[in-house]
């Protein structure tokens, strides 16, 4: 418990607090008047309004598209289901920069639609919304579908026997059981879309700005720390409220439901209606998820003189335009090293936090549980900038140390580790440990012999997720990664920011590599995953 709390205090609370303080107290005096002034500026109000409505619209659209998907994945049995389930999860662990890039390749300048029909959706809000659906589809399918698959169909059958119509039985039995998990998923999607940075940065252009991109602009471009601090505070409060509501709905979801093994509830689709539903879901997956990924890969090979590996080859050389000081291949190695270090930190901190949360109960612990989720919603930009201004002086001078980047990345990995480990650790029956103790195992031995084998898979899954999100972390890394050592997402963003065929192609090639790394690690995890380890993500 001490280590995770300390980790969060030093690497999350301290940077965030001190940057807010720097913004609100520029010369030793609190200037809270900035609040009213900032929050009434029309352009800031525009930003707040856009953040809110695009997040609401994204959430609604995601639910609309993904809920049928959740049903299909939960209740239908069809060939290739396992692979497809892994595929729809790929976008979620993909770096947001890459998701943005993939959509750019589909609907943007020189994108597929542009080339075919001259349609461009970038710098339109539709591109942002579609990318958000792409990104969060898996959140809904996993949270809602995971529970749906385990709901005992006999409950519905009991209602049918008692005289309820098919729809009535669904509405009165299944829907109430699902509602909390739908709400939880919706809140998570809202949280992710409201704090979306990479996607809006790449697809929104100058026209659209969310709270998060505005914080970045105010901090990095304009050095308006006071405005950024006010916005951070606003975001902090909003995220806190959302997380509190989320914690409540999740707790409600944990109330006794009759759960059965997921394999037992899935059936082959029967009748035209069910086949049509399955077909519709598969089509939407193909259009929304496979198409952007496919186009991205296609673009990375499409050179001006036909298909070829030119862009990939160019990655091995130091660019002649001075964008980077090292070849891109170094960037890849670099990213992997950072991500591995971040994974180690995230698994250690998150694992200890989850273990502490399992053993204790009470208000304080629940508060800590919610606190662990904060980095998911609080501006990564703020954290990154906070790192720069707090960790550059004794006692902790890490500015020159490579560990700074993995630490920031670990921060976003920890919530996933905790979310995945907690249900599994809680599911280990205390009496199994007691049985081991009665048979002569000391407490440490009992943990090693009983807990560890049961949670090993979950630990691997958690490590995989932490690895993927660390690899894709952008908001904080963009601040603290040094120019000579950029990570993949940072390099992609920089390439996209420069004109020229070669830069664009290289960005596509790098993104493809990133996607393949993420997808491969995820597919490996999907093999490991069993029903016992089905956490929230």
């Amino acid at each position, binding site marked *: 418990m001490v280590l995770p709390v300390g980790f969060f205090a030093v690497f999350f609370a301290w940077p965030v607090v001190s940057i807010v303080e720097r913004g609100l107290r520029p010369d030793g005096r609190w200037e809270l008047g900035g609040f009213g002034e900032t929050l009434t500026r029309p352009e800031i109000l525009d930003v707040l309004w856009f953040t809110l409505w695009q997040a609401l619209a994204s959430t609604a659209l995601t639910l609309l598209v993904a809920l049928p998907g959740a049903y299909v994945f939960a209740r239908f049995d069809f060939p290739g289901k396992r692979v497809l389930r892994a595929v729809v999860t790929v976008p979620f662990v993909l770096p947001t920069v890459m998701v943005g890039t993939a959509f750019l390749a589909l609907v943007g300048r020189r994108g597929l639609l542009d080339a075919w029909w001259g349609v461009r959706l970038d710098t339109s809000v539709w591109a942002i919304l579609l990318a958000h659906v792409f990104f969060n589809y898996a959140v809904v399918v996993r949270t809602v579908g995971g529970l749906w698959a385990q709901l005992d169909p006999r409950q519905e059958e009991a209602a049918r026997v008692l005289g309820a119509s098919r729809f009535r039985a669904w509405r009165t039995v299944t829907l109430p059981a699902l509602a909390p998990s739908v709400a939880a998923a919706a809140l998570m999607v809202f949280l992710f879309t409201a704090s979306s940075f990479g996607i809006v940065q790449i697809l929104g252009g100058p026209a659209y700005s969310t709270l998060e991109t505005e914080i970045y602009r105010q901090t990095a471009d304009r050095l308006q720390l006071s405005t950024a601090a006010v916005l951070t505070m606003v975001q902090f409060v909003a995220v806190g409220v959302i997380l509190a509501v989320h914690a409540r709905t999740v707790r409600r979801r944990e109330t006794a439901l009759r759960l059965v093994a997921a394999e037992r509830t899935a059936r082959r689709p029967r009748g035209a209606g069910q086949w049509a539903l399955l077909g519709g879901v598969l089509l939407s997956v193909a259009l929304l998820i496979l198409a952007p990924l496919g186009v991205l890969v296609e673009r990375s090979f499409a050179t001006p003189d036909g298909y070829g590996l030119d862009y990939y080859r160019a990655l091995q050389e130091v660019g002649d335009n001075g964008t980077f000081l090292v070849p891109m291949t170094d960037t890849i190695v670099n990213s992997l090293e950072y991500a591995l270090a971040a994974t180690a930190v995230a698994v250690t901190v998150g694992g200890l936090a989850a273990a502490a949360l399992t053993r204790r109960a009470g208000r304080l612990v629940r508060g800590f549980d919610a606190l662990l989720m904060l980095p998911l919603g609080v501006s990564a930009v703020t954290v990154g900038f906070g790192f720069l201004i707090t960790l550059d002086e004794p006692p902790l001078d890490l500015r020159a140390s490579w560990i700074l980047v993995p630490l920031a990345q670990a921060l976003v990995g920890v919530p996933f580790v905790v979310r995945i480990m907690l249900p599994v650790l809680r599911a280990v029956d205390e009496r*199994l440990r007691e049985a081991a103790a009665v048979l002569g195992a000391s407490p440490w031995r009992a943990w090693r012999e009983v807990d560890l084998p049961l949670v090993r898979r979950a630990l691997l899954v958690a490590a995989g997720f932490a690895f993927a999100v660390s690899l894709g972390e952008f908001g904080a890394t963009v601040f603290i990664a040094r120019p000579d050592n950029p990570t993949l997402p940072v390099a992609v963003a920089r390439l996209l920011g420069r004109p020229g065929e070669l830069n664009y192609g290289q960005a596509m090639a790098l993104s493809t590599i990133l996607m393949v790394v993420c997808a491969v690690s995820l597919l490996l995890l999907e093999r490991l995953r069993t029903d016992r380890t089905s956490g929230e993500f």
Partner: protein
Amino acid sequence: MLTLTGATVRFGARAVLDAVDLEVADHEIVCVLGPSGSGKSTLLRAVAGLQALDGGRVLLDGADQTGVPVHRRGVGLMFQDHQLFPQRDVAGNVAFGLRMHGVGTAERGARVEELLDLVGLPGAGRRAVSSLSGGEQQRVALARALAPRPRLLMLDEPLGQLDRGLRERLVTELRRLFRQLGTTVLAVTHDQGEAFALADRVVVMNDGRIAQSGTPLDVWRSPASAFVARFLGFDNIVPATVTGAAADTVWGKVPVPDGSPQGERLLLIRPAGVRVTAAGEGLGCHVAARTFRGGHVAVTLRPAEGPLLEAEFPLRDAPEAGAEVDVEFRAEDVVVLDGEDA
């Protein structure tokens, strides 16, 4: 072997174990019998060290166990729902305690074989525990508990989750096995049939206290209190004034055995002690219900006065429902309860 003196466990204000004194001798099989919530599982957990005592002491072979951690007490405990380790196969489960005690591989293998033979699952070592039926799981749990040769084996509702036929077969098997091995056993159950078939001595618990202790026959024949009598399934209990060889009750004069305690008492009449007599000579009753029970017929009688009366008749002379009969009572099936509770 095991001695509990004044063992007390409180959950909040409620005493789950209330100053319990209990002795279990070497090679003795003691069964604690009581309704759920009477504190019997807590008793086992306290002996195993899984539950700290709020008062009193647990002694094993005369040594105070206060402060001795669970894994050093050298007792065995078979959990109610077995708690087999799901990630290990049958042999892995049985060998677990041996490994914890540092037994070598070769000896371990031999002992596992021996135990699986003993519980009737020879050659099952490689099977996954999830593939076992309820009865097989129970056997594996037993083998696992016996493997390290615990000085005291405790069983928590050992047969609770099994179906009836299997339960009756296993309980005789268990008794034979424990006799053969000379195991000292402390078991808890809510099922009197199980307790009576398994135990040398039965201890009835109520609300954290011991209500009665004795051989199965003693307890069955002369329940010490109305609680014990009701728990054993006897419902014909009425207040009575005992004078000499007869007692005055709301059901009239009832003969009592010689040497019964005298004065204001509670009287138990076993259903088998109710007999039909000639009209006008006994207690007039209306036959309210009649249930066929295989070997006998259970009849509920409604006397003119007083509570309903449960009776048992042989098949051929059981009265029909709705009939009016006169009944009398047999002294050897009447018990004057010693206890003070009503």
